[in-house]
């Protein structure tokens, strides 16, 4: 399968990365090149093989459902490019 300019724009949209026309032109062959190279996995016989879900056998732990952290609003906001009145500030979302 081949990635065309429209697909590159679609992926960029999904990934929330603005791309110029020139970038689309450069990215299409680059992505095709990489996707063409990983295509060789199609030749592996994976019949009956379960996809890996844990690298090292481990179990997800459960902990008591209690508050273990918090009260750090200022720390959380300290690095925000925009913070107002104790909240993250973003451009207007609702017209």
């Amino acid at each position, binding site marked *: 399968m081949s990635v065309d300019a429209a697909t590159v724009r679609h992926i960029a949209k999904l990934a929330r990365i603005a791309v110029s026309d020139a970038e689309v032109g450069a990215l299409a062959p680059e992505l095709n090149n990489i996707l063409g190279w990983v295509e060789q996995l199609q030749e592996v016989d994976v019949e009956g093989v379960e*996809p890996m*879900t844990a690298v*090292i056998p481990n179990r997800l732990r459960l902990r008591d459902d209690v508050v273990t952290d918090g009260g750090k609003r200022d720390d959380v906001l300290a*690095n925000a*490019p925009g913070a107002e009145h104790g909240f993250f500030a973003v451009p207007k979302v609702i017209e």
Partner: protein
Amino acid sequence: MTDLTDLGIAAIRDGVRDGAFSAREVAGAFSAAVEKGRALNAFTVETPDHALAAAAAADAARASGDLKPLSGVPLGIKDLFATQGVATTAGSRILQGFEPRYESTVGASLFAAGAGMLGKLNMDEFAMGSSNETSAWGPVLSPWRRNDGGNAALTPGGSSGGSAAAVAARLAPGVTGTDTGGSIRQPAAFVGITGIKPTYGRCSRWGIVAFASSLDQAGPMARDVRDCAILLEAMAGFDPKDSTSLDLPVPNWEAALSGDVRGKRIGIPREYRIDGVPAEIDRVWEKGIALMRDAGAEIVEVSLPHTRYALPTYYIIAPAEASSNLARYDGVRYGRRALPENGNLTDMYEATRAEGFGAEVKRRIMIGTYVLSAGFYDAYFNRAQKVRALIARDFERVWEQCDLILTPTAPSAAFALGEKSADPIAMYLNDVFAVPASLAGLPAISVPAGLNDEGLPLGLQLVGRALDEQGVLNAALALEERAGFTARPEPWW
């Protein structure tokens, strides 16, 4: 008096304990070396005050008899580790200005063990790269040069390139690195130092900027095997804040170090002999095989049939996980924001990410987004996870025939900056020998084994069973003792 920057971790620790020198003197000597070594571009931030404060505490601890395992040892910390109050960028413009309010678990453990921090180490952007050329802050230069009299700037490897250069140039006795698909081992090999990626889950990932969470592992890089064992003991351990952290005691790797490998079976996987690899790599591999045989190990030819699929598998799984992990860089919570005039929220996301990410990171996010997108998930991501299971099964089976695997670390010596940056796949091939152990989560180390005809270091890799860091370290020590690698770069910086 010896130059303190010639000392490794064990020698510094023991010297401070025995009163041969003070921790303050050590911190001062390395901080001066960091400053003098700025031409290498190994550090993104210098923190001499941090190193000095830890040293003062170490000197006080000695006086009061409270020395800790790393008292008096100053370290470099890869910029992927969140450091409280100290800029943390992961080599990316998008995190410019980010000063974490917390310490990574691994960093906190090292500091609690008495270590100080000399500074933050430059790296490929978000650890995506094998040459340090994707760093937003410019490439790190290797302290090594070819012996042809030319001054071609060489890569220290990547992504832990600043880490590698700092140790090789004696700017730090030891450093932290991280390894997702070879990012500790390949740079260690390129600059003639030792670096170990432990079993997945040994070191907490909490507070380490995430790239590919099922692959990312922290590990130490230092001048020799013993120093790596010492650092790894301080870095490893269970952390409830990391859901894949292994709830196991940390062995006393240093105390149990032994170069006695008599009776150990060392597997030589035939699939690692690949076309197009220079003869010098085969030669150093043969040398390693001879040295292990000389040490009393039994050499066994083995097969890891799915090896050739490891790299393409990795280049589906790692970008897929990265595209998800890097979704958090949205210009809202930390780092940079770009907001076009009259732009809405989506415009802000798209402009922030377009401006903040470099070309390789964008490429990988796009690949990851594509392979996870509706209609392609099964063909790419799910299939890759199946092949990954087969790669892990290859190792499971091979452990019936041998205890360790010995291979070259990288398919070449260090190359010149710019030499491979035009072709992503040529760059990816750097990690062809390193990636299988990453996909299987196994402990793997790189040890310097010799120089090539151009006078550049070459490394050998040892891979062990899950949780058998001791076996890996011991075999590495046997190799180190016999390889007698003492070469170091001639200072030009």
